[in-house]
């Protein structure tokens, strides 16, 4: 399968804290790649570097055959590289509809935006009913739907989701993973960061486990699911502690 996103030797650091060590990862077009790992492993740093929100110290990011390492966030968004950030980051002082419109601010086709907003309300009637209310009125699950809707409005080719199931009820988690499958069937490539290992491995076509800024395991999700080292890496150590020898 063709590679849509190619991350090569990517390093990210904050001051003296190195979050990613020369990490490489390929995301095939049309696939779902799950990225697992404990808190502080560097998952969010990876997504933010790909989205252009943090500047990498080194390495390359190639999207759809183009080197975008130096590109800004708007250029990446316009190309279809869209991040649903950790903690959803809904704008609670804006209405639900305004949140969607902000997600569309780079688009120049108002009619298309209106159509897409209508389609999102069809998909999530709870959002449509309250479109003119402040987004603060939504439950956590509904906010996550709005965050995904806001990303959809930007017409992603690659959708990056950072721990979307965090804090959701089991019912909403079920909805969320069904939605991820659905979006993927519609042709959107997905890079999914999750702590919800079982569900993430169940939807993914490929998985990688991150530990202290490095990929320590990668491959077929079904195989990873049975690997005892997964639980160890996952539940394992907080950032900063030395890695155990395998």
């Amino acid at each position, binding site marked *: 399968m063709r590679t849509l996103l190619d991350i090569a030797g990517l390093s990210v650091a904050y001051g003296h804290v190195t979050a990613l060590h020369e990490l490489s990862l390929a995301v095939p077009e049309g696939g779902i790649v799950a990225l697992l790992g404990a808190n502080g492993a560097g998952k969010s740093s990876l997504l933010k570097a790909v989205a252009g929100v943090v500047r990498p110290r080194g390495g390359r990011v190639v999207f759809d055959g183009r080197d975008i390492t130096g590109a*800004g966030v708007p250029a990446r968004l316009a190309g279809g590289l869209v991040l649903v950030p950790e903690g959803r*980051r809904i704008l609670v*002082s804006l209405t639900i509809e305004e949140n969607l*419109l*902000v997600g569309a*601010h780079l688009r120049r086709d108002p009619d298309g935006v209106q159509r897409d907003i209508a389609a999102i309300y069809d998909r999530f009637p709870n959002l449509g009913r309250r479109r003119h209310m402040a987004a603060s009125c939504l439950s956590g699950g509904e906010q996550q739907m709005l965050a995904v809707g806001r990303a959809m409005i930007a017409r992603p080719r690659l959708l990056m989701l950072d721990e979307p199931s965090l804090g959701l009820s089991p019912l909403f988690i079920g909805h969320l993973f069904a939605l991820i499958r659905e979006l993927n069937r519609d042709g959107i490539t997905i890079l999914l960061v999750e702590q919800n290992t079982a569900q993430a491995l169940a939807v993914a076509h490929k998985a990688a486990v991150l530990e202290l800024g490095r990929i320590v395991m990668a491959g077929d999700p079904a195989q990873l699911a049975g690997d005892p080292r997964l639980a160890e890496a996952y539940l394992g150590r907080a950032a900063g502690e030395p890695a155990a020898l395998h």
Partner: protein
Amino acid sequence: MIAQQLVNGLMLGAIYVLVAVSFTLSIGILNFLNFSIPGLFMVGGMVTWILIGKGLHWGLAILGAVAAAGLVALAVERLSYRRSQAREPEVPLVSSLGFLVLLENLALVGAGSDQQAFPALVPDFNLRIGGLVVGGAQLVSLAVALTLVVAISVVLSRTSLGRQVRSIAESRETAVILGIDVGRLVPGIFILSAVFTALGGVLFALNYLQVSPFMGEGVGFKGVAAMILGGMGSIWGAVAGGLLIGLTEVLSITYLGADVVNVTVYGLLLAVMVLRPQGLFGRPPAREKL
């Protein structure tokens, strides 16, 4: 004659409105109490006066003064606000106060400390409605202030640009993730706030026919009071606060005498603060700190 005093109060209030809106834009969007604003007010009046003195057409002179204020605001953004983003919140406050002192002293060196006579630009016509007399300059002030406030309010609430600015106001980090050009919009807000303030200074000069290096100070304090009275970060709060303070000031000068004016104005502020700490139109703080 109370109706006449109401008109005079509204006119004075219109000038406070522009300054209060300027403060509220800065606080509400950037979380920055920009103390250079009284200096920009003075730049509006003084630079217009200087340029007219050099023989420029008054329209060009006003344009030049507004442009000068915009440039100073950009300097405040670069040198005071941006540099101290990562540090303590008091730092930009103090360094913007430094800009005020600098501007006032530059004006002092250039023009002396005296009040300077400002030419009567608005023809001295009076509109008579019943027994009321509304001066030309008063009408211009109200019209300019109202137009600007309605325009900024519509832009903020109904346009894509306004939504982007409000996104920055709520969370700059989120705005960056959404691809909003924070690096361009933040200086834009500084310029916008400078335009409001400088035009306030021009209107002040038009009405009172005088300018001085320290003309921004009293108005600046009242503008801050008006913003707090109306509720920080609320445009219509700043409008209500500005008009209310203008009215209070004129009415208390007329009926209680000039020496008590600050007692009534700041007493009003204090009373509102006690009864309604978030101000008339303010919401209790819920916003993420920027």
